[in-house]
């Protein structure tokens, strides 16, 4: 691709940036503090952390403020910042079974092991715009739940797929004893290209742009491929996962703290000729923060990719087209000067038509243009 090197105009560029800074930073409204953003815009913050692939609420909040609320731009800022950071450690493998749940729903079963915990959600209530909303001192309403049912062990419920395993209704894809897991693909070091291991696809989806992932999932439901069907969600969770690293002096793991994540299991009814029709298989989704839509789309696409990814190009779509930085970066670059490339296109058109009004010559050669009579 050849772009015109735009020269000059530096003063105008600086003036344009100054307009952004000035209008944002000197607006008469009270300054939006980092704490306000993390406290009141938590879902936007979580989305930026996930798509920016850097877990730190304050960094994401500052990026959102600088980007004037543009999630994609904030993600860009966070990802650029992340790329400057040294890697201090790789964590011990996180076991999602250790999640301390803040919310846990099992759509596939009315009474699973452990509670159906709605947590912080408005999923089951009507949402009506409230333009007079403000701090009202509201607190959690105590309901009539039997206090005997409140057991801290309920914060670590057994996952639904384990129930399926026990019932021998789930394909067992776990490695055999003694088989070491593959080293996970590291997207921050190498770009993933098909064919890629599942770890690359899961990592790509974990940091994919949420809307893009949902769009890809929806296309897989209703689009021409139609490779997702009969999927039921086993688990939808939001909770805290312990993050551990190895202590350099003792060689033993220590828990640095918790990160919040959303998790989903998508149960697929196997019906292919080479598949075990007597069992289900399960797709898996996990992403930073509270972003259930993304985790659900990810779990559905994981199982779809495992079943059909090679055949219908889904793997390629997930690896190469769902990253918001890539797609939006490419889209936005179209706004940059393209004078040279477009001028060459004009030149080609003129050449095709014959220089200086050779249109009649072309018309003679194509007396029945495609589409004119069809």
């Amino acid at each position, binding site marked *: 691709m050849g772009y015109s090197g735009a020269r000059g105009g530096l003063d105008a560029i600086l003036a344009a940036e100054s307009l952004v800074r000035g209008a944002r930073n000197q607006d008469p409204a009270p300054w939006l503090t980092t704490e306000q953003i993390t406290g009141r815009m938590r879902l936007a913050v979580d989305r930026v952390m996930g798509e920016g692939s*850097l877990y*730190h609420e304050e960094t994401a909040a500052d990026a959102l403020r600088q980007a004037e609320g543009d999630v994609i731009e904030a993600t860009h800022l966070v990802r650029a910042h*992340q790329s400057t950071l040294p890697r201090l450690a790789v*964590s011990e493998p996180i076991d999602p079974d250790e999640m301390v749940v803040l919310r846990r729903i099992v759509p596939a079963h009315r009474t699973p092991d452990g509670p159906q915990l709605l947590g912080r959600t408005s999923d089951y209530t009507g949402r009506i715009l409230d333009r007079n909303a403000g701090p009202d001192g509201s607190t959690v309403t105590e309901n009539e739940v039997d206090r005997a049912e409140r057991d801290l062990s309920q914060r670590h419920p057994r996952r639904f797929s384990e129930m399926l395993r026990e019932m021998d209704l789930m394909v067992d894809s776990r490695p055999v004893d003694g088989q070491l897991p593959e080293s996970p693909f*590291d997207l921050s070091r190498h770009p993933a290209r098909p064919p890629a291991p599942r770890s690359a696809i899961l990592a790509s989806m974990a940091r994919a742009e949420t809307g893009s992932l949902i769009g890809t999932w929806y296309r897989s439901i209703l689009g021409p491929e139609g490779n997702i069907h009969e999927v039921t969600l086993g688990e939808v969770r939001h909770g805290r996962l312990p993050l551990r690293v190895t202590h350099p002096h003792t060689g033993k*793991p220590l828990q640095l703290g918790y990160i919040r994540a959303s998790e989903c299991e998508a149960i697929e009814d196997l019906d292919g000729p080479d598949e075990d029709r007597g069992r289900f298989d399960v797709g898996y989704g996990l992403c930073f923060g509270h972003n259930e839509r993304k985790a659900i789309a990810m779990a559905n696409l994981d199982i779809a990719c495992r079943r059909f990814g090679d055949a219908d190009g889904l793997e390629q779509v997930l690896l190469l087209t769902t990253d918001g930085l890539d797609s939006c970066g490419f889209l936005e670059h179209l706004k940059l000067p393209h004078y040279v490339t477009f001028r060459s296109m004009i030149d080609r058109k003129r050449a095709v038509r014959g220089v200086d009004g050779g249109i009649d010559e072309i018309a003679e050669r194509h007396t029945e243009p495609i589409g004119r009579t069809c």
Partner: protein
Amino acid sequence: MIAHEYSRERVAELLADAPEDELVDLADACLADGIELAVLTAPEVGSVAAQVREPIAHDHFFLGDVLACRAEVSLGGVRGWAMRLGDNRSATLAAAICDAEIVAERPQAVRVLELCARVEEIRRLAEADEWAQLAPTIVQFEELT
């Protein structure tokens, strides 16, 4: 020898969650007797790559990076180390000094251990409070017929 129930890892974990002002005050107290301090690794903000072992096929994958800060010191020849989520450099350096104070069994070690105990208690209360707010949202869906 100071008897306590905390492992080195547990101390690091609790100090990683301690409030900055208490850590810094305690680190200052540790240094007040003039003990020689060498900063082996100045507080460095970077990332920890969060590796997950997913529960379905036990494949490992990278979820993303987590912002963290680490530091290492030598306190009178005894090394102390700390890592903390986020980018708080002063709290991380103070935690490394407090860690070394315990390893060296120096005079302020007891206060550091008391801080660890307070952090544990704060965590326990916070979790109980959180659960008290969440538990009322446990639902029994009705069977649809």
